[in-house]
């Protein structure tokens, strides 16, 4: 169980999960995950491959709904609303909770159309307003200066790092409060990775960020809180410096000191 004491007195919580189980058909991938995600902080999820980090992340915006025979148990509250309650509007949820994927996946359309995609499907037609949203989102994702002269060029022509920042801009354009990132920099070179990490540092003033990473240094650099997953269980969650200097659990210590995983 997570103790509240690891958070400052008046820390607001945006996501509360309690006793979350997830099943892929007969196979259980998550076991009773109870975790709090603090507002406007970066929470890193770490753990060895296959421990359920992505599965947990995808529960938070219900992307797991698309998995045939996938099943969730337990409760997940986002902004005090049970997101698995019957009648929940998944579209509204996903507007609130944006997601960035491991493999950058810009649409094979223009840079502009990529960023405008979300606002457009949510009914924004005014070209002036769309142009504003696109510029603002690209600014926020720290890619505006690199692409402002070729907004109508195909996004596939961008470099890997630029594509990933474009995907972040695309997610921001919908106006989410929460950003889920699943190893957003794992396919990038060190320089592009640094840019993404800097970007996360800037975004954390306005957004609640949950980031999955394999890279311990990265978790240490970008996050305020770190949750360690192991074999589908949440082993512990604490302030990042504490996890990396003085973890309470032996398993956590073994993992971060590189004894396994």
């Amino acid at each position, binding site marked *: 169980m997570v103790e509240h004491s690891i958070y400052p007195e008046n820390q607001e919580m945006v996501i509360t999960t309690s006793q979350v189980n997830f099943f892929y058909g007969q196979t259980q991938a998550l076991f009773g995950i109870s975790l709090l995600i603090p507002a406007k902080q970066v929470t890193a999820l770490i753990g060895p491959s296959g421990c359920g980090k992505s599965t947990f992340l995808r529960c938070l915006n219900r992307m797991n709904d698309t998995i045939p025979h996938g099943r969730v148990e337990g409760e997940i509250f986002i902004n005090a609303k049970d997101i698995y309650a019957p009648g929940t509007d998944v579209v509204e949820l996903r507007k609130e909770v944006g997601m960035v*994927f491991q493999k950058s996946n810009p649409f*094979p359309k223009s840079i502009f159309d990529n960023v405008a995609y979300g606002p457009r499907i*949510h009914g924004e037609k005014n070209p002036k307003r769309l142009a504003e949203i696109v510029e603002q989102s690209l600014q926020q994702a720290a890619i505006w200066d690199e692409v402002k002269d070729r907004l109508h060029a195909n996004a596939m022509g961008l470099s890997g790092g630029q594509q990933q920042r474009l995907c972040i801009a695309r997610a921001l354009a919908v106006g989410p409060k929460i950003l889920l990132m699943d190893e957003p920099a794992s396919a990038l070179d060190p320089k592009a990775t640094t840019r993404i990490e800097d970007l996360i540092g800037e975004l954390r003033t306005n957004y609640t960020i949950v980031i999955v990473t394999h890279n311990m240094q990265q978790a240490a650099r970008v996050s305020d809180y770190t949750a360690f997953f192991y074999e589908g269980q949440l082993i512990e969650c604490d302030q990042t410096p504490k996890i990396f200097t003085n973890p309470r659990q032996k398993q956590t210590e073994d993992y971060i000191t590189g004894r396994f995983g």
Partner: protein
Amino acid sequence: MNNTADKFILLSLRLITYAIVLVVGYILFDIIRNGFSALNWQFVSSFPRRSGAAGGIFPAIVGTFYLVVGTIAVSLPLGVGGAIYLAEYAEQNRFNSLIRLAIITLAGVPSIVFGLFGLGIFVLFFGFGPSILAGSLTLACMVLPTIIVASEESLRAVPKGFRDASLALGATKWEMIRTNVLPYSLSGMITGAILGIGRAAGETAPILLTVAAFYLPRLPKSVFDQVMALPYHLYILATQHPEAERIRHMQYGTALILLLLVLGLSLGAILLRTHSRKKFRW
């Protein structure tokens, strides 16, 4: 495998390919050589005279064109719709794999069977009579499997990343399909349509029983009229005509026009496909 065996296989494959090209090339050459003399403006623009022994084949060209357009108009939306269902909505269970198997099998059913089916269902049961409507529907049934299979494959080829990204941005499933799957699979669907066009234009058996007339003095006025059609015209000229031996050039001319028509329609579709390929590349 050793090097000699490797070389031998490569050589045989190459020879087989050349042989195929040679045979097709010879057929083309033969048709062009024999049909070329029949080609002139009058041949493509006027009605036949003396039971097709003289005059032109204009109404058959028009008829085949109508039939192809009608067939595509019916089979493309239906086929694409079916493919969307199979690729995007249908659960992967035994029942649906059975459906898929049935569709693939349907593609191999002889065309005369489709002709009889069309006669029974569209001509008689629905009472359309021998008509463009009945013929197009029959041909549509025949090309439907081809279009479904090609479309389904092209839908499945769209990367999961596009779908995930779309959904994660709050698109509904249908919005996701419409904006981020269909546009990219268009070129594959057009390929299916091209194959369909070729078959619809060239088949004789399905139209024999459902629409084709050997001679009509005027062009059709509505979809409930019969039409003349190139393959049927060719069939009669070559096998049923009393002067069949003497009018070989008319037969070859008709075959050549049929080839050109299919080529023209396919070329249009291929251009469309290249265009949509260029637009979306990943």
